[in-house]
Structures are given as C-alpha cells and as structure tokens.
C-alpha cells in the first residue's frame, strides 16, 4: 500500500472530519480545536495505520473520542460561544441555496440532538455520509445484521420527523 501522508488525509478527509465533529455534537466554538486535535492525533498515529479499516472508519474512531472530550469540556465550561462571522467569498451555491443548506443542516442537527451517542454515529455514517452498512457496522463494532436493522429504524424515525416538519410548514 502506498504510504498515506498527513497532507493526503487532510486534503481528502477534512470535510468528513468536520461534518463528523459537528454531527457528534461538538459546539461550534470548539470545532477548530477539535478538528486540530483530530489531525494532530492522525499525525502521530498515521504510521500505525495499516489500512485494515477504511480511512474514514479510522478517522471516525478518532473523531468520536475527540468529540466526546470536547462535549464534556463544553458541558463543564457552560460558556456560550458565538460563531465569529468569518466566511471567504462563496464559490459555491448562491444565497438561496446557502439558506436552504443551513436550514437542512439545522433540522438534521436538531434530529441528531435527540439521539444517543450510538445512534448519532449510526445516523451520521449511514444516512448522512451514505457509508456502506458493513463498513458502518465495523466502525461501530456492531454485527452487520444489527446495523441493518438499526439503520432501517433510524431512517423511519427520520422520515417521520421530516413528515412532521413538512406538515408544520
């Protein structure tokens, strides 16, 4: 296997790690620190990465621990952190699409807030990231059939929440 470098991992997986941290409940004000922590750990451990699991699966394990630490820290601090408005000029969607994406992200975040940690991981990997169920099962140390069943239930729950949202609208 070709040697993977930190730069490769950063370039390819930073977005995944960021979404993962956000989905796992890291407060917005702590996202920078959490993402930094993940990649510093990656830097230290990359030579131990043998490729037995996929890179996202490996990163998910690291990000989950880091997210857990940051959530605990944030709970102790209880200091409100406000996002600094810091955006480079958008090269992507226009304002309407941006608002739509943010609304969708807020809805998904609210839904995930109601889930326990295991279900959050399942939702993030299987539904949000669209990872294959056997890989999800490996990342969460679940039997594959159990993962299938739980994802099916979770999807149903999510569809119901979505239907309620549409009715309310």
């Amino acid at each position, binding site marked *: 296997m070709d040697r993977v*470098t930190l730069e490769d991992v950063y*370039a390819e997986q930073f977005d995944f790690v960021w979404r993962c941290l956000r989905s796992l409940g890291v407060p917005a004000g702590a996202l*920078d620190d959490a*993402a930094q922590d993940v990649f510093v750990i990656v*830097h230290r451990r990359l030579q131990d990465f043998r490729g037995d699991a996929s890179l996202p699966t490996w990163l998910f394990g690291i990000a989950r621990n880091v997210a857990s630490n940051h959530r605990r820290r944030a709970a102790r601090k209880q200091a409100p952190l406000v996002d600094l408005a810091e955006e480079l000029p958008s090269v992507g969607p226009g304002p309407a699409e941006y608002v739509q994406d943010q609304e969708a*992200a807020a809805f998904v975040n609210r839904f995930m807030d109601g889930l326990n940690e295991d279900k959050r991981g399942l939702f993030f990997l299987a539904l949000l990231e669209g990872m294959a169920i056997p890989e999800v099962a490996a990342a969460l140390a679940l039997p594959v059939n159990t993962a299938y069943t739980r994802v099916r239930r979770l999807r149903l729950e999510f569809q119901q929440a979505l239907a309620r949202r549409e009715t309310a609208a």
Partner: protein
Amino acid sequence: MTSFTDERDLLAAARRGLSPTAADRARVLRAIRGVIAAGDAGSNGDVPPGGAPRLITRARRLVAMGAVAVAAAGVGYLGGFRAGRRQAAFDASLSTAASSSAERPKLVTRSPAAERAGIGHLPAAPSRDVADAPALPPAVRRRAHAAPVPPPTLDETPSSSLTVELEGLRAVERALRDGKPGFALSLLRELDDKVPKGRLLEERLATRTIARCAAGDVPMGIDLAEEFADRYPDSVYGRRVADACPRTDSRRSGD
C-alpha cells in the same frame, strides 16, 4: 422555511450545510502546522515507534537529565566532606557548573522557515478548497543527519513559547467570537509581554487588526486592513481582516 419532500434531498443539503468553508480549512491547517512544528521543535521530528506521544519521550529525557544532575551534585557533596567545607563548596559549585554546562548547552534554534514547516507540502493536485490555503514551505528534512542536539531546558524551548503563543491566540480568537474586542486586545498585549518575539506574528497582527477594527480603535484616515495587506500580501487572513475593517478614506484619497 424550505420544503423538502425527499429525505435524500434534505440529507444532501444538510451535508453541504455541515461542511466546512474554505476559511475553516485554511485556518485549521495553519493551526495544525503550528502545533506540529511545536511538537517537532526540540526533537528530531520523528514520531516515536509505536506512535507514543512525543511529550512522554521528552519527559523521560528530562527525568534522565535530572538524575544525572543529582548524581553529579552528590559526588561533589561527598568530595566536599573529604576536602573540607570550604573546598567542598568550591567543588560543588564547579561540579554543578560542569554538569549543567554539559547537560544544558545553549539552545540551538532553527530557522524561521524550518520552524514553520510542520508538515510537508501539499499533494501535487490538492482539492479545490484546500488550494485556497497558503502554500506550505518545502518539507523540512529531518535533523537526524545533523549532529545530535541535546534537549534544551523546558522554559527555554521554542516549543514551550510557541505553545504559549498558540494558547494565547486561541484565547484571543475566543474573545473575538464572544464579541469582546477590548478583552482580545488586552490578551494580545499580555501575549506580547510573555512572548515578545514570537513566531506567529502574522496571526497576531491579523487578530489585533480585527480586534481594533471591532473596537473602533481606528485612527482617522488610516486603513488598517490595507496596512495589514501591505505587510502580508498573501495572507490567508487578508479577507477576514478586510471584512472586519470597513474601508476608510485612506491615505490615497489625499487627506
């Protein structure tokens, strides 16, 4: 409220909404480079076998250094009893001086470019957004080929001052996020006192400029963002500084 009838559409939109911006990527990359550079300073830059944290290796070195120093002092003390108190004090001071000069030679510093290079260069074809991040300097070859550099003392290490700097700048960022530019400025002054000649000068100036603009501490006719851009034309913070500092009728307007 936007209506989503299809679960997949909503999830795709949420995925985009949860993704980082180019500014997020660039900012975190710089922070990671700083932390890695801090970790590499004072060691040869290798990750220890088994991926053990470098801090442990350094702690072991310090313990070993301490043990050697204690042994040397003990030998000097015993010698002092034999030769008389006065001579002993002299011997002890000599042995202490000898041991400290042997164990703690002058700090060898690296060039600023080497200090900043925490990770190597980006891949040949980086993704679109990572390409927005500042170009990294060429990879710094490990110092294993150079003569071995003994570990410096903890207080003098470049890594410890860089850590103080990083921590300070994080606190400044938090203060800015909390909408407390005045507090951010006092934190920056405190940081200037603690680490007068730091390595993250660009970051300091960027946050100072943003804080000053947010606090309204802008002299008439002076465009702080422009001054920042003059000093660091390729800075990744340029846009953020410019956004924070509204344009004034600057020197160019002739007043």
